[in-house]
């Protein structure tokens, strides 16, 4: 109740501050002291203020706190024994014999999932661009996986790939593609492959929606001119379609990479990182460390490392793809 009261007071103070600030702004608008240019300069910050304040409250505190915890001995089961331990958590992390396996899994998981989602999403968007009967219904069906929760998709995959009763083994045996049942979830390599399949299936609609929306904004007269000039389909795609949708692709790949890199729900539901960490990625490992060993210090050091990796990735990605220049014609 105390926390709720503090929270309500915080929100009320926020609203009050916002109203006060806005009213002051309008009052000043009438005065001739402040120049018009200065007011225009301040305006964006004024409207950003409430959102920024909320972001600081909701994200900055956990972020700063977990950065501090990364350098502490912090076990949830021993709350009286919290102390700073320097770089011990990072040393412990890299001393783990499985850490390189987990880093390799993470890279494979992200690259394969993003690539699969991109290729299939682009194909789907190109297919859906042209009108055909029952297009609306088809739209609804193919976009359905995006609406499912990861938990549901995880359970479907877990049962589909069950070594004894799974529909996948049954299907492959009927098609004479395998002669013996495959232990998909119990074999190193295959267990991660199952998670990647699930992630691709879940994320294809998002890529398709984004790319399709970008395609629909391409002016029709550009295509008309290409037809008149006798431009072939491949050339049309690479010279017209792709440059127009490039900014959308860059943003979508960037977003999906970050989301996939951070996601662990599918892994926890389908394999729980097993067998022997062969389908474990850095975030799922962090979750395991936080909620199996209750070692929040170690888990936070992993979190800080993840954050650093993502910052480097985003900076490099935007530079390499020349995002600022993308879409300029």
């Amino acid at each position, binding site marked *: 109740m105390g926390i709720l*009261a503090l929270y309500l*007071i915080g929100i009320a103070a926020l609203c009050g501050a916002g109203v006060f600030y806005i009213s002051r702004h309008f009052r000043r608008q009438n005065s001739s002291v402040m120049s018009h240019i200065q007011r225009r300069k301040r305006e964006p910050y004024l409207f950003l203020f409430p959102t920024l304040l909320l972001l600081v409250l909701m994200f900055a505190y956990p972020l700063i706190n977990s950065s501090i915890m990364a350098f502490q001995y912090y076990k949830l089961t021993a709350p009286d024994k919290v102390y700073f331990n320097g770089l011990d958590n990072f040393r412990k992390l890299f001393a783990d014999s499985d850490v390189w396996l987990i880093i390799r899994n993470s890279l494979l998981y992200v690259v394969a999932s993003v690539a699969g989602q991109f290729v299939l999403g682009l194909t789907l968007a190109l297919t859906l661009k042209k009108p055909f009967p029952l297009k609306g219904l088809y739209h609804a069906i193919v976009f359905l996986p995006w609406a499912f929760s990861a938990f549901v998709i995880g359970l479907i995959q877990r049962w589909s790939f069950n070594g004894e009763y799974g529909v996948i083994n049954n299907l492959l045996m009927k098609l004479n593609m395998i002669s013996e049942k495959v*232990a998909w979830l*119990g074999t190193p390599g295959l267990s991660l492959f199952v998670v990647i399949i699930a992630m691709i299936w879940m994320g294809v609609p998002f890529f398709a929606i984004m790319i399709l929306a970008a395609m629909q904004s391409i002016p029709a007269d550009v295509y008309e001119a290409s037809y008149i000039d006798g431009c072939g389909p491949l050339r049309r795609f690479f010279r017209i379609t792709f440059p127009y949708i490039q900014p959308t692709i860059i943003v979508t790949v960037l977003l999906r990479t970050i989301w996939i890199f951070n996601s662990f729900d599918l892994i926890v539901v389908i394999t729980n990182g*097993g067998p*022997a960490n062969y389908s474990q990625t850095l975030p799922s490992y962090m979750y*395991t460390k936080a909620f199996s060993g209750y070692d929040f210090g170690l888990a936070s050091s992993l979190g800080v490392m993840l954050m650093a990796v993502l910052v480097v990735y985003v900076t490099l990605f935007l530079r390499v793809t020349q995002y600022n220049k993308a879409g300029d014609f």
Partner: protein
Amino acid sequence: MLKKLSVLAFVLVLAVSSLVAAPSAEKPAKATELRFIDVSPSPTRQEYFTKTFDKFKQETGITVVYESVPWDDAANKLTVLGASNQLPDVMTTWAGWLGQFTEAKWIVPLNEYIGTTTDEYAKTVTQLVWKSEKELYGNIYTIPDGMMVKGVFVRKDWAKDAGLKLDPKKGWTYKDYFDAVYKLTDSSKNHYGTSFRGSRGAFDPLFVYLESFNGGAAYSADGSALFDSSESLEAYKRWNGLYLDGAAPKDAINWGFVEMVSNFTGGLTGTLINDSEVAATCIENMTAAQWTVMPMPRSDKDGKIYNTVNSPYAYSISASSKNKDASWKLIQFLTRPDNNIEYCKLTGLIPIKTAVGNDPFYGPNGPYATFVQQLNDPAMVVPCAFGPFNYTDMHQGTMHEEMQKYLLGKQDAATSLANVSNELEKRMKEYLAANPGSAVEKPKGLF
């Protein structure tokens, strides 16, 4: 417009302030209310608890609010609640969490509450559970909800087809058990000999098997682990050989409790080592002609039955409870002979009070005959637990991961066993050094 906005903000602040101030205003005295959390919920259990709490309210006027958390998330939820000082008054607690809970001082000792009433409890409670808690943690922290002992659930029909002559009264040795598992495996029928546990909890039955070569002990007096002998290594290989030789499905490397039980009752596996509580699931899902229970195998070395006897979800009182006396009243009510026997029958446990008498359900012709028979067997010994230290992280990770690496051929058996054994030894020695006067637990018998 500006005035209106200012007035609106003022009213909002006032409204929120009054809302915030309201709880601190003087309130009429409220009747006692307790929070109770069940860590293994099921419709049957929930119905029992809510019905019993209604009865409790009628008798005492104390209201009990029922909460639950699925077993798989229970350890996490209780840990988070404990760390934030919000644990419910009364909890159902698994014995494996006691090291962590007592270390963090989240639960209170019950010695004073129990007082001189120890005679009311069965020997399994006083001589095993409480004796062990006193040795490991210095006090009694739990009142068992019921007792359970392990047995080997066997497909009776498969055993008959395989020509196995199994007699629960006569028992068997581990050699007989391994032979039976291999004989029950028939890939042409999609039959596997055992519900092998490869994931979380995989080390539990294996640990007991390894201890059966050491007279039930896990450590020497100075805290050194006793699993570095060639005998232990051979036993480790023999146990895991069941999986490697194909007597269990390949997927079993990921199996925990749920998968083991469902694949036994579902007809994929022929044997299952588990607690007596599984009998209730077998009664519900299988015909009497399909299953039977054999006692845990006798040691090939000394002929004794090494078997764990514990309480699945014992009751404990949280240190943060503001109504500890009322909480104790609730525990007393739940374990009253009439309530306890009703609960035990529903959940497949053996009652904890001597006053329940000789109920035919637990007699020689009842479904729990083999379990009760083991408790009355002078050859039965309860081996030592992993240790008095906090081993939750090992139990949820290292132990089965090391085993999985061996099963997958990623490391040899000796390294796999040594990695677990060395870590246990390290923690045991650290515990002994940090707790002067403490000693290594000894195996216990009822006679």
